[in-house]
């Protein structure tokens, strides 16, 4: 276990966090106040603040600052749990407030004021695990020191019970509320405070409901779309419907006469090949209400110029993928001797799998408030990356980043879409040009047609088996449109890195493994979609193992367990490493198989499918039971999902993420696909981009947590990758029909009609 080094990292972040004001955690306090003084009645809330994150009021209520964006993954509850645990307070006395972006300019560039801020790659909890516990522990140490001074006793004689500093086992005590005023004046101790042993946890590991939910169910929670600023004007943008198209000319005469319309502005998009500061070229309308802006935007008459992507189509894209796979690609992994092993193999299994482009479609359409003033800017954004928002506004306005104030709101879904701050840049462009405080609103159509889509690809899988049915050679050849398309300073030979994670299973479990990449081109912007390439690769690998088993007369569970092998840490250099322990997947697979009664014979038309995958440090497995009727009607009967995330800090939220991730995986596999024709995205809203609804989700749905050790992993993305292959493996078990192309859509019914 690498706890010592992690603690050092935590300590360093903590000091950076405290470096805003004279190297201490004391924030804006008058120095004249005597350390021993009783808190005065006139104390402001700032004077009851310990560091940047903790404020204790007179009644003992503790407000904890959450430094990360809350996108539904539960950090606004889980991170304060870490602070509360070490601070030693009762959870019911905790309130949480959202902190803004905190960056500090130094001689070496910008550094974090409140620790690193931004959520992606399921790192929100793991990267703050040491840091937030230190925040709580340091504040507790300050409170104990304040009590020791008050009592004039050595601090070593002091301890705490929830909300109180106690002298020598309870002789006397003082509440945190009584102590905070003087504790706030103490310098941060040189040493980091000791952290609790896992066996002493009272809050970590206990299920806690989301701290915001009362506000959510009463409609009081404030998202980006609910925010406002004084003098706000509303904006909408008409973007080029054709990929990389540009405005040739536009006529705004009629639009300027429409009620509520204030201004019409040209918005310069990136040129073909340039990085996407924003997604498209267009024309913006500024109005006195969102509805007026959207109406006027639709009424604009715009002539668009020719685009180099005007003839792009999905059909041509897939054709090209098939053609490419006939040639030789870039070999990115070549363990052992795949050619020799294949030529010596007794049996070959070869199949192709197709994974489509998909859109993020967070339910809160993109929106952002920006007020660009002369030398400063105010930003209110639903974003996963507030520092990116700050950079975006600086880039389009020229305002120094230290003068850009970025507030984060609650976010109506992230899924990787709001790692990009293109909509922030757009709002800044409009505010700069108009001189007005602007609230930019996207429609759903804007969102579906303008996204950083999850890359699509065609995978050719080949395995060689020896006479005993052991897999001795494995090859994955992928032709795809890389996520790294149009990234600055990204050479073509590195594009594969976003799509193939070379250390993924079954590497190091099969001696001869090769991966080959072919970079296909299409004008669709691409980006990170929850569990990025794991979604495609888990579908492909977990489907293919199932096929190998069926094609060679083996049991799919047994073959999986044999391939996973014994429990041991394997080197893993991709995100989520440094190790991957296949034994943790075996344990989960065995568990879900038992829960769903895998061995039991099912009636005709019913079947069970299994899959397991390691994603960004966490482990998950699914067992799904389906029935397929004579006419090809698919019914998901039962889902058993299990996760091993090390220590589950908030089991309530871990299960929620596992449930939601599973449904996201299944929803996407069932019906979601973005296609292109004549250079245009063909989908536009939920009628043709049909997210799953409750009728498709079985009432029999279990989410289980299998604990492992006392270090947590993230949980936001682990529930997705194995869900789709478990479903399609179940469809095969039930019907004999193998789904090799996603989405499933009406493939089952079509096959019956054929």
């Amino acid at each position, binding site marked *: 276990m690498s706890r010592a080094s992690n603690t050092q990292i935590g300590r360093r972040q903590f000091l950076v966090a405290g470096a805003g004001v004279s190297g201490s955690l004391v924030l804006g306090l008058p120095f004249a106040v005597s350390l021993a003084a009783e808190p005065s009645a006139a104390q402001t809330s700032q004077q009851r603040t310990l560091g940047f994150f903790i404020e204790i009021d007179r009644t003992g209520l503790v407000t904890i600052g959450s430094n990360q964006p809350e*996108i*539904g*993954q*539960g950090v606004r509850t889980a991170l304060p749990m870490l602070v509360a645990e070490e601070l030693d307070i009762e959870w019911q006395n905790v309130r949480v407030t959202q902190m803004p972006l905190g960056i500090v300019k130094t001689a070496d560039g910008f550094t974090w004021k409140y620790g690193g801020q931004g959520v992606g790659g399921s790192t929100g909890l793991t990267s703050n695990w040491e840091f937030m516990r230190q925040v709580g522990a340091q504040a507790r140490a300050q409170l104990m020191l304040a009590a020791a001074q008050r009592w004039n006793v050595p601090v070593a004689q002091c301890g705490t019970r929830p909300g109180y500093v106690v002298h020598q086992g309870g002789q006397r005590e003082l509440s945190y509320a009584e102590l905070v005023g003087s504790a706030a004046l103490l310098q941060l101790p040189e040493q980091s405070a000791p952290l609790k042993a896992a066996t002493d946890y009272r809050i970590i590991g206990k299920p806690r*409901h*989301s701290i*915001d*939910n*009362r506000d*959510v*169910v*009463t*409609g*009081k*929670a*404030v*998202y980006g*779309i*609910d925010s406002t600023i004084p003098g706000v004007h509303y904006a909408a943008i008409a973007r080029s419907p054709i990929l990389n198209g540009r405005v040739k000319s536009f006529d705004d005469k009629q639009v300027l006469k429409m*009620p509520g319309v204030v201004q019409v502005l040209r918005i310069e998009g990136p040129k073909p090949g340039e990085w996407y500061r924003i997604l498209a070229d267009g024309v913006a309308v500024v109005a006195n*209400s*969102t*509805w007026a802006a959207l109406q006027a935007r639709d009424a604009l008459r715009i002539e668009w110029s020719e685009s180099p992507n005007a003839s792009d189509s999905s059909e041509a894209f897939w054709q090209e993928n098939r053609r490419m796979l006939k040639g030789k690609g870039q070999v990115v992994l070549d363990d052992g001797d795949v050619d020799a092993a294949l030529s010596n193999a007794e049996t070959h299994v070869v199949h192709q799998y197709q994974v489509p482009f998909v859109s993020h*479609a*967070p*339910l*809160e*359409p993109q929106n952002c408030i920006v007020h660009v003033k002369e030398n400063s800017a105010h930003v209110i954004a639903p974003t996963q990356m507030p520092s990116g928002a700050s950079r975006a506004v600086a880039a389009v306005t020229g305002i120094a980043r230290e003068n850009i104030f970025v507030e984060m709101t*609650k*976010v*109506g*879904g*992230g*899924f990787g879409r709001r790692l990009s701050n293109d909509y922030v840049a757009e709002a800044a462009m409009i505010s700069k040009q108009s001189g007005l405080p602007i609230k930019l*609103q996207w*429609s*759903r*159509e804007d969102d579906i047609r303008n996204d950083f889509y999850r890359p699509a690809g065609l995978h050719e899988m080949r395995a060689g088996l020896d006479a005993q049915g052991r897999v001795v050679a494995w090859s994955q050849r992928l032709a795809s449109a890389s996520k790294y398309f149009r990234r600055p300073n990204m050479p073509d030979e590195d594009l594969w890195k976003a799509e193939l994670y070379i250390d993924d299973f079954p590497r190091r479990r099969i001696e001869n493994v090769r991966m080959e990449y072919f970079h296909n081109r299409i004008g669709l912007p691409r980006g990170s979609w929850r569990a990025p390439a794991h979604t495609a690769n888990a579908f492909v690998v977990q489907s293919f193992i199932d096929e190998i088993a069926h094609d060679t007369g083996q049991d799919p569970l047994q073959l999986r367990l044999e391939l996973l092998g014994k429990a041991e840490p394997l080197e893993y250099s991709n995100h989520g490493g440094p190790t991957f322990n296949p034994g943790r997947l075996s344990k989960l697979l065995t568990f879900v198989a038992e829960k769903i009664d895998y061995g039991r014979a099912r009636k005709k038309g019913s079947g069970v499918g299994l899959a397991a995958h390691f994603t960004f440090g966490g482990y998950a497995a699914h067992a799904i039971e389906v029935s397929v009727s004579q006419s090809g009607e698919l019914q998901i009967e039962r889902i058993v999902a299990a996760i091993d995330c090390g220590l589950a800090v908030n089991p*309530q939220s871990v299960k*929620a*993420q596992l*449930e*939601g*991730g*599973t*449904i*996201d995986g299944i*929803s996407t596999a069932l019906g979601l696909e973005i296609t292109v024709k004549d250079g245009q995205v063909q989908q536009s*809203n*939920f*009628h043709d981009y049909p*997210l*799953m*609804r*409750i*009728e498709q*989700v079985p*009432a029999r*749905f279990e*989410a289980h947590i299998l604990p492992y050790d006392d270090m947590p992993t993230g949980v936001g993305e682990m529930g997705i990758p194995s869900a789709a292959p478990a479903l399609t493996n179940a469809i095969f078990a039930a019907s004999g029909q193998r789904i090799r192309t996603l989405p499933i859509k009406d493939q089952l019914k079509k096959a019956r009609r054929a």
Partner: protein
Amino acid sequence: MISFRLNKVSVAFEAEPGTPLLWVLREHFDLKGTKFGCGIGQCGACTVHVNGGAQRSCVTQVAAVEGQNVTTIEGLAPADDSLHPVQQAWLSHDVPQCGYCQAGQIMAAADFLKRFPRPSDQDIDQHISNVCRCGTYVRIRKAIHHAAQLIASES
């Protein structure tokens, strides 16, 4: 001038009669619990009650509620610091993740339970069509059943 009752209070709105009720609620009356999700009545994030029945406010012109009773999530509970049984059940099951769709889900469920006081899973499947992008459906189903019990025990 369009007059209607909004969360039990008489109000009037003067503007384009074709404006969707959603935007009137959000930007004119500052009731922002009702959310914009799709604008075409597909997702249900904008669900409100008109005369007690669930309606998608993004495709309801404000002129259509002239003289009607409109209830939003802010007015669903019987009193300011109390909760409707559906809201209570939603809290008990810790339903929301990002939470964006949940006001609409709750409004849809509250109306549904008036029509189906003891619903089966099939009833839920057939009559609850709101979209949740986070996939909280497992808990929504449990919370609807729980709310049905709470309502039954209240009356």
